[in-house]
């Protein structure tokens, strides 16, 4: 049976991993002595490594922040998209709002603007805001479809 060729990469990896493990187990004194023997300054190395670690930690936090910002932007964009599908005129928006409140009066509880107020006193801006909130809650779809139908 032919002899299998040597796996040089696996051999090199085994050696380096054994050396790494021996470093992990070495005493602090040995680590510092070996560093000085190699004409290196442990303090300089330590400062540099600490800097690398701190930068990585900062990078991670900034990355998380960016992800949160992106999610927020997407949410805002989604609200904008929904509000842009509202009727164009104040009269039509008021008509849609009255329809929703007539058929599903319980939704009024979910709207901050509605607390203790009469519909008839609502300004156009109030109506717009309420419809945007209802849109964000995903309850306008069925009314829009009925309107279209």
């Amino acid at each position, binding site marked *: 049976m032919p002899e299998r*060729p040597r796996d040089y990469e696996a*051999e090199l990896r085994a050696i380096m991993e054994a050396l790494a493990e021996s*470093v992990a187990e070495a005493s602090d004194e040995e*680590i510092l002595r070996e560093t000085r023997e190699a004409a290196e300054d442990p303090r300089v190395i330590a400062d540099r*490594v600490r800097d690398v670690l*701190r930068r990585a930690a900062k990078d991670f936090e900034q990355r998380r922040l960016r992800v949160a910002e992106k999610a927020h932007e997407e949410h805002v964009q989604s609200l904008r998209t929904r509000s842009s599908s509202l009727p164009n005129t104040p009269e039509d928006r008021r008509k849609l709002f009255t329809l929703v409140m007539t058929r599903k009066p319980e939704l009024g509880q979910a709207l901050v603007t509605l607390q203790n107020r009469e519909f008839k006193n609502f300004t156009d801006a109030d109506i717009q805001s309420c419809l945007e909130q209802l849109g964000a809650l995903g309850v306008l779809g069925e009314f829009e479809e009925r309107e279209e139908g």
Partner: protein
Amino acid sequence: MPEERAATPDEVRAALDALGEADLVRLEKFARYRIRGLGRKAEGRDHDDLLGEAIRDTLDPEKRRWNKDVSFVRHLVGAMRSISSHWREQFDENEPLLESELLQTTDEGEVLSPLDVVGSGAPGAERILAAKEELERIEKAVADDTVVSDILGGLRAEMLAGEIREVLGLSVIEYETAMKRFRRRVRPTGGQGGSDA
């Protein structure tokens, strides 16, 4: 891991600030050896990348949380061990045909070494040549130390430290002393063509 033993990001940052000089140097040496072990499979990543990845993973609650029952240094060492192994596995997965492509058999049944096909355009052949040359430098660097050379032989045969000690009849202290000499001959900063090996 019990939730109360998992470090918070603030605790991780505090532990990082509290790392002493020897531990920081230890982490760097460990990272360098692990990257040298990857050879060209590191794909351009260096020891700083490995150190950074270990911290980022530790801060990520969905990845490698630090169990405070273990020292922070030991945790980072474990994280680097695992990350560098993962990088190698990823490389191997991306080149699944490498081994079979490189092993060639002649009509007489002789299996050709990957090095025999260097220059033939086979993927990975240059990388294997680089590993072979580094092994030769290491062999040369420890040639005058019989015990270290014997340990090297065991490692090349992918034996574990315990097996090597048993075969060579070395105590734990004798083995560690020899490894210390080994580290001096093959320094972590050696890289490709370093002064020692």
